[in-house]
């Protein structure tokens, strides 16, 4: 089976390069046959990688421990449910997943646009295949010499040939990140999967994030195609709008799932720690969000064209960088593993080359990107979006700087200085506040220039409501300035959204005599982009409330309890009932049973555990969370005496954390609404796409009226 996988990878590599050339030649010579052949190349690439991925899943499922990757990340007693996700537990498998997703996106993209008559599509396909070829090269050709092996121990025929051709000496040739590599011997047992990764979140989090990362390659490829082909009007944005939202959807989902996974499994009571791996997923999200907003300005007003190119290049660069950060060990953290110089160099080289090539292309074609309008006023939607973009990019830059700070300081001062959670929070809270305010302002303020009447009409009630909430909370005894400020801002944004829904519904009811629910449904479905956007903003507001409350008002205590003893904490009481120790197939479990009382009424009987995993030789303290909408009771077993006579329980009260996940769900739902295919829009897109670029120039005016 590993041979099938390896052979598919080799074929895919060849197909990939053929497609690059066929697509470029086809587009340059305007040859439909060559272009059609390139499209078939893209589909074969996807097909071959699907076979390779299937082969890897099979090897993991049957625990073929002779395959190094399988031996390294699974063990015979690992449940099947976690054996398959071990696909992306290590470097090699993650890279295969990356290209597999890329090939899937490319295949889908080519399928969707196969009849669209524009050179953008073949050029974009070529760019995507170039990106794919880099990852294929890493997987297939990157190798190291293993001194503990002799050349005769290399079993794979391809690597035997490579060893002979390259004359590698000093040991056996060993590919660095090829998951199909067979060991010269079969180990008795595998090393097992890190137990913290043995969680349902692990099933979904990495692939979701990769779907987001890789998805950004599509708008990037179209942007580059626009520059190469010289068709740098708005067509590339219109063709990629839904792709960008799709990528953004997965990036958002990946970030939210990541936070949820950290909260549920890591047991330290928080959901975000500014860990480099978290940042690696967050930076592309910030840039993608900026891009989603600024393309609206280009679509409707023909402005910010160069800026959009810069943004998509940066966003794509950051997705590659994010992949690199999680796959290399440059800044150590939970997932960051695998130290390998050749790997690091190859990645850095690819990043530098692609960003530089893209920037060079942008500079040579900059005259194609003339702005059609000027900014008219500081108080206008254009400038609100511009500020939104500057703050988003600024935040991305701050997070990047903080993440890389240990590297800078190591290079320049010889000491590794890292920045902590406080550093990030201190810098970023004003930025989040500004972005939240813009969330309310941006969608409502007038285009071109807002006059006093417009401002009064749109913002009088929301501002009043925001102030009312802040003052009200202060009267009820809230003393934290941060909390009052954020509560006021969130209330303001909420009021703008409600006001929009109210006005839209009322207008529909007046025109078409519909009932409230019908009018609202029609409102959202007829203008799904706009109202989906409002729903996303609503989700952001809810998340902001949850984050503000849980970061400012968390309370914590360590309670040492003898058996039967009960101690109070903040209106709760915790009684230690019993202790038991038992063995599961792959671990020992130490468990203490507690009763949790709220205002002297029994709330729940809960068991907190520490587990010792055999194969991984690792102990893990699991969190027990009692969720409520008001606050979560977050319990962990701190320590226990061997006979179980006393235990120390760590209790954290996390207010409003559930709202972060609720807000996340609203955001995801809003994104689905915004990307829902709209029949009229699809017709329009097909017509404009077929008519080519001439029609496009008229579109901004038509869209501006919408």
């Amino acid at each position, binding site marked *: 089976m590993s041979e099938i996988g390896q052979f598919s990878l080799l074929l895919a590599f060849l197909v990939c390069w053929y497609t690059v050339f066929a697509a470029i030649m086809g587009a340059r010579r305007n040859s439909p046959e060559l272009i059609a052949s390139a499209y078939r190349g893209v589909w074969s690439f996807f097909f071959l990688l699907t076979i390779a991925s299937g082969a890897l899943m099979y090897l993991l499922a049957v625990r073929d421990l002779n395959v190094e990757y399988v031996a390294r990340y699974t063990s015979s007693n690992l449940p099947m449910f976690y054996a398959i996700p071990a696909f992306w537990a290590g470097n090699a498998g993650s890279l295969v997943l990356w290209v597999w997703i890329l090939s899937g996106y490319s295949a889908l993209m080519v399928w969707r646009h196969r009849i669209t008559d524009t050179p953008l599509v073949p050029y974009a396909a070529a760019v995507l295949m170039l990106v794919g070829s880099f990852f294929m090269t890493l997987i297939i050709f990157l190798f190291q010499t293993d001194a503990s092996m002799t050349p005769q121990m290399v079993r794979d025929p391809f690597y035997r040939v490579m060893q002979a051709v390259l004359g590698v000496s000093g040991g056996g040739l060993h590919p660095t990140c090829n998951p199909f590599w067979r060991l010269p011997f079969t180990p008795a047992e595998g090393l097992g999967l890190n137990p913290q990764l043995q969680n349902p979140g692990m099933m979904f989090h990495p692939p979701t994030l990769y779907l987001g990362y890789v998805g950004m390659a599509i708008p990037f490829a179209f942007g580059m195609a626009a520059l190469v082909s010289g068709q740098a009007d708005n067509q590339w944005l219109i063709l990629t709008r839904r792709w960008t939202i799709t990528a953004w959807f997965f990036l958002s989902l990946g970030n939210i799932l990541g936070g949820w996974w950290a909260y549920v499994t890591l047991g330290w009571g928080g959901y975000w720690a500014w860990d480099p791996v978290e940042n690696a997923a967050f930076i592309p999200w910030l840039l993608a969000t900026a891009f989603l907003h600024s393309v609206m300005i280009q679509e409707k007003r023909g402005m910010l064209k160069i800026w959009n190119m810069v943004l998509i290049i940066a966003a794509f660069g950051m997705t590659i960088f994010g992949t690199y950060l999680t796959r290399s060990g440059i800044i150590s953290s*939970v997932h960051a*593993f695998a130290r390998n110089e050749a790997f690091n160099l190859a990645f850095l080289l690819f990043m530098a080359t692609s960003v530089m090539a893209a920037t060079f292309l942008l500079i040579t074609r900059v005259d194609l990107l003339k702005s059609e309008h*000027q*900014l008219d006023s*500081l108080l206008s939607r254009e400038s609100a979006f511009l500020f939104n973009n500057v703050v988003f990019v600024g935040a991305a830059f701050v997070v990047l700087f903080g993440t890389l700070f240990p590297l800078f300081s190591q290079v320049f001062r010889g*000491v590794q200085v890292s920045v902590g959670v*406080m550093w990030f929070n*201190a810098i970023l809270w004003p930025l989040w506040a500004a972005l939240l305010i813009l969330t309310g302002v941006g969608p409502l303020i007038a285009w071109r220039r807002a006059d006093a009447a417009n401002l009064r009409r749109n913002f009088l009630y929301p501002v009043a409501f925001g102030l009312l909430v802040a003052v009200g909370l202060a009267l009820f005894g809230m003393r934290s300035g941060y909390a009052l400020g954020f509560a006021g801002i969130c209330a303001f944004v909420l009021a703008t959204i409600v006001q929009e829904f109210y006005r839209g519904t009322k207008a529909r009811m007046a025109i078409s005599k519909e009932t409230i629910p019908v009018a609202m449904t029609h409102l959202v479905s007829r203008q799904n982009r706009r109202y989906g956007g409002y729903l996303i903003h609503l989700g952001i507001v809810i998340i902001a409330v949850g984050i503000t409350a849980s970061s400012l008002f968390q309370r914590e205590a*360590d309670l040492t309890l003898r058996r039967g003893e009960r101690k109070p904490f903040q209106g709760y009481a915790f009684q230690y009932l019993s202790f038991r120790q038992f063995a599961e197939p792959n671990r020992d479990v130490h468990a203490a049973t507690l009763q949790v009382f709220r205002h002297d009424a029994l709330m729940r009987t809960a068991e907190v555990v520490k587990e010792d995993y055999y194969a991984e030789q690792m102990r893990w303290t699991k969190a027990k969370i009692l969720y409520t909408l008001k606050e979560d009771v977050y319990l962990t077993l701190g320590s226990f005496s061997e006979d179980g006579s006393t235990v120390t329980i760590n209790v954290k009260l996390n207010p409003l954390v559930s709202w972060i996940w609720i807000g996340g769900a609203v955001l995801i739902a809003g994104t689905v609404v915004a990307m829902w295919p709209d029949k009229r829009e699809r017709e329009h897109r097909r017509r404009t796409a077929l008519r080519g670029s001439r029609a496009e120039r008229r579109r901004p005016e038509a869209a501006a009226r919408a």
Partner: protein
Amino acid sequence: MRARNIKVMISLGLVIGAIAVLVIASTTRSGYTTHYYRTPSEFLARSHDYVNSMVRVNGKVVQGSIRRTPVSAQNSLPVLDFVLGDSLNNTVPVHYVGTTVPDAFKEGADVVVEGIYTSEGVLEAKQLLVKCPSKYEAAPKPSGNV
């Protein structure tokens, strides 16, 4: 037209300037950044520079140096004292008050201590992290759990 554009540009400049000022102010502020040392020897060579600031030192728990003081009438939280070293000559005494001692903390363990270096030459630990042997390919999370 031009003048308004300039107004926008100046405002954008102010925003960017404000972000830059925030970054610089936070980076130079003590307690917001942590100096990280791979060995106690490296740290001790420069330790006088770091009195009262946040440091993170990576070392081994010296055999026989662990002293635990359980909860009693005097102290409401358990106290843990031990010595961090890379050789017997280069050691730093560590004082920790609290219960979040990582699961794998023991004599000879490879630990990272994050805390404040006091003028008495003691590292007041805020957080103890245990490094897993490289086999597991996972570094600790802020919890201190491995």
